[in-house]
């Protein structure tokens, strides 16, 4: 009997739903059934999840056809990076990859630290408690990705709602997602026309040149790439800042360690990436098999949708010692919080650096920072692929 999907909500924000750990131990490659009767395979062990993400027999392009279970953006954006397989995918990705390498990201660090300092100064002027989402978590990554792309950060009120619409999960009305995507497409078409007339020193201008001068991508790919970078560049990071702080509140000893030693920010961010349950335990990045594949002794037939469950794979005791313990000093940490393989998060290095600078600013710049809401009072936006908070009230004095 297939397991009904979505799985039951976990009793806490800080661990995957217990059923996933049970499956990882006893039934690591299992079938689930969506409300509409469609089925998929759910994969929960670290080694198998890595295989699903690394092995060419698991295709994102095949997963993005309209007859497959819809787990978000996929079929909506067939021209996007996440809907393509190598070598097509790599041709398109290399046009932007150089802007997100470790070296390039390190050049941006001082600017990001400056944005962090400005936002904290602004936050301190607010009466307490103030909302961290509006004053910090959201504007930080929005400012950074907007600078990089050449999108006016002042347009946030326009594009953020569309971005939320597109970041829907399997329960989100497809019409809302398509609507958000269409609006973003219109927005980017305008922006691109504007940049064609007045080129800037930014990534969108570079991509326009790659299209107009070297014919490296189509107009639709150009627009979709812009949308993907804008959404991917802020939504996850913004919510990860919130989830990191909430997770640290649950682990006062680890929070104290991070506060006492800024040198731990690097391993700390990696451990928080591993541990934090940004989404509801199961990745949306469904793949479809191009041929029959055996995983953990189970044969998945050709043409089958497969869901890699990153959140629980990151807690696999076969790979991580004491996996359900948060340890900001953990040294051996090959987590897959950014995925792996061809679709390894393009912005991973940027996100790491932003998260390090965000925590440096918040934990060291505001030593008494605390969240002043109980978990039960936190309101997450419904039907989102990531845990997205409306507000996060904080105090600091």
């Amino acid at each position: 009997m297939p397991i009904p999907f979505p799985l039951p909500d976990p009793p806490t924000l800080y661990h995957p739903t217990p059923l996933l750990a049970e499956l990882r131990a006893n039934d690591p490659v299992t079938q689930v059934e969506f409300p509409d009767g469609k089925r998929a395979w759910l994969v929960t062990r670290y080694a198998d999840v890595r295989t699903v993400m690394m092995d060419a027999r698991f295709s994102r392009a095949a997963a993005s056809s309209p007859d497959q279970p819809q787990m978000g953006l996929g079929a909506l954006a067939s021209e996007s990076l996440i809907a393509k397989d190598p070598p097509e995918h790599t041709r398109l990705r290399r046009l932007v990859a150089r802007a997100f390498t470790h070296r390039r990201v390190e050049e941006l660090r001082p600017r990001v630290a400056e944005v962090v300092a400005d936002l904290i100064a602004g936050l301190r002027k607010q009466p307490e408690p103030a909302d961290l989402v509006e004053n910090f978590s959201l504007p930080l990554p929005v400012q950074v990705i907007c600078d990089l792309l050449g999108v006016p950060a002042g347009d946030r009120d326009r594009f953020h709602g569309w971005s939320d619409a597109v970041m829907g999960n399997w329960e989100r009305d497809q019409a809302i997602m398509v609507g958000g995507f269409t609006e973003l497409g219109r927005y980017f078409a305008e922006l691109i026309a504007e940049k064609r007339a007045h080129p800037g020193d930014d990534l969108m201008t570079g991509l326009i040149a790659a299209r107009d001068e070297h014919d490296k991508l189509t107009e639709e790919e150009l627009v979709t790439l812009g949308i993907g970078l804008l959404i991917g560049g802020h939504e996850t990071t913004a919510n990860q800042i919130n989830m990191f702080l909430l997770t640290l509140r649950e682990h006062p000893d680890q929070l104290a360690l991070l506060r006492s030693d800024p040198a731990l920010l690097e391993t700390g961010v990696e451990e928080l990436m591993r541990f934090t349950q940004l989404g509801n335990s199961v990745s949306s990045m469904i793949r479809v098999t191009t041929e029959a594949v055996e995983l953990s002794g189970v044969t998945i037939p050709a043409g089958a949708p497969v869901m890699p469950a990153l959140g629980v794979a990151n807690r696999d005791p076969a790979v991580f010692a004491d996996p359900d313990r948060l340890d900001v000093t953990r040294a051996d940490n090959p987590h897959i919080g950014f995925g792996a393989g061809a679709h390894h998060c393009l912005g991973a290095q940027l996100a790491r650096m932003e998260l390090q600078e965000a925590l440096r600013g918040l934990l060291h710049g505001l030593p008494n920072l605390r969240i002043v809401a109980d978990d039960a009072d936190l309101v997450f936006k419904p039907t989102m692929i990531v845990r997205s908070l409306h507000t996060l009230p904080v105090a600091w004095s």
Partner: protein
Amino acid sequence: MTAQWQVSVDGFGCIGSGMCAASAPDFFELDGRGRSRALHEKIDPDERVLDAAVSCPVEAISLVDLATGEEVPLD
């Protein structure tokens, strides 16, 4: 005839994203520790390898043109 390329991966810089091994599996693989290595030290110039090298998030892949001894430009 075009000169061959020498492919190397900086094992210390590599973060094991799997980008190269997944996009160009004929040329790269991950070892037991999840670090990438080149399957062939010398290859005929190949667009797939260039794409993978350009796409590496930590710029750990380098290609050297064996005729000139110069690095193949990745930007």
